[in-house]
């Protein structure tokens, strides 16, 4: 089995179990307060790490290239409440244009 299918299977089954744990196993008993607070903060921690690594790293190298220009354009688009597909396209286009003119 290829790596891609191993990931699809593991993430698919894992997510199904996480989603069903409350309704099937716990039957509505609340989670401890501390657990809830940590779980709620996992999303900002991981998403920020994903922004940082996807924008600033290539393998084990920290690099500044056209991606940072794309990210800046995306930030502007988000501020202007653009829909998510528009944000993505604007980021890709500005990074692409920056490369064409030789920046980054």
């Amino acid at each position, binding site marked *: 089995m*290829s*790596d*891609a*299918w191993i*990931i*699809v299977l*593991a*993430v*698919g089954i*894992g*997510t*199904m179990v*996480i*989603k*069903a744990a*409350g*309704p*099937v196993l*716990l*039957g*509505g008993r609340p*989670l401890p307060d*501390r657990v809830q*607070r*940590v*779980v709620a*903060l*996992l*999303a*900002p*921690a*991981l*998403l*920020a*790490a*994903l*922004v*940082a*690594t*996807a924008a600033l*790293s290539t*393998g*084990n*190298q920290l690099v500044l290239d*056209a*991606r940072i*220009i*794309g*990210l800046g354009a*995306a930030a502007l688009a988000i501020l202007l409440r653009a*829909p*998510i*597909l528009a*944000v*993505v396209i*604007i*980021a*890709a286009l500005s*990074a*692409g244009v920056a490369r064409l003119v030789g920046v980054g």
Partner: protein
Amino acid sequence: MTSPPPIRFELRRGAITAVPLAIAVGLFGISFGVLSVSTGGMGALPAIAMSASTFAGSAQFAVASVVAGGGQPIAAIAAALLLNARYLPIGVSVARFMPGGRLRRFIQAQLVVDESWAIAADGEGRFDPHRLIGAGIVLWLAWLVGTVIGVLGGEALGDPAALGLDAAFPALFLALLVPQLASRQGVVVALLGAAIAIALVPFAPPGVPIIAAAGAALIGLVKR
């Protein structure tokens, strides 16, 4: 006390309420499809299978990003499941309103995503399970169809690296991060998470810095 509205009414109400959100979810699915068939992506069929089974946007993009960055499968899996951990408390919140036996509840639970959960909320911690199902099905179809369109369109685009598609990932994650920054604790955790990840990039295999950043969430153990 009035009798509860009929089941079909709530199913339809959930589905109709979900339509505007489904358009956004569909567009989001298109970007997932496009990125999956770009250079270094996971490929068309795995992407479609993942949208059908996992049905969770940010986790799927995390997988796509770690894979594109050359990370090990285990790193991609861990990042995705940590992002989906939020469905544990969300699942608990709707659990006591779900009818039926274990199998029926297992299937209903799969239709819980952030948007269907919000549509099903009746206030004061109450949820309508049928509205959740109606909304969940519409959103799932939108996500799946969007992914298929993205996969087909992405293959037509050709080699997208030249287009600057590698800048799409940080842009996407930023768009997903912004709504998480409503509280000061969210901002602090985000900054700490980014700092941990950047500090580890030169030393750790790709993907590992992202998982390590989850440690920033332990700030939640400190009482506010």
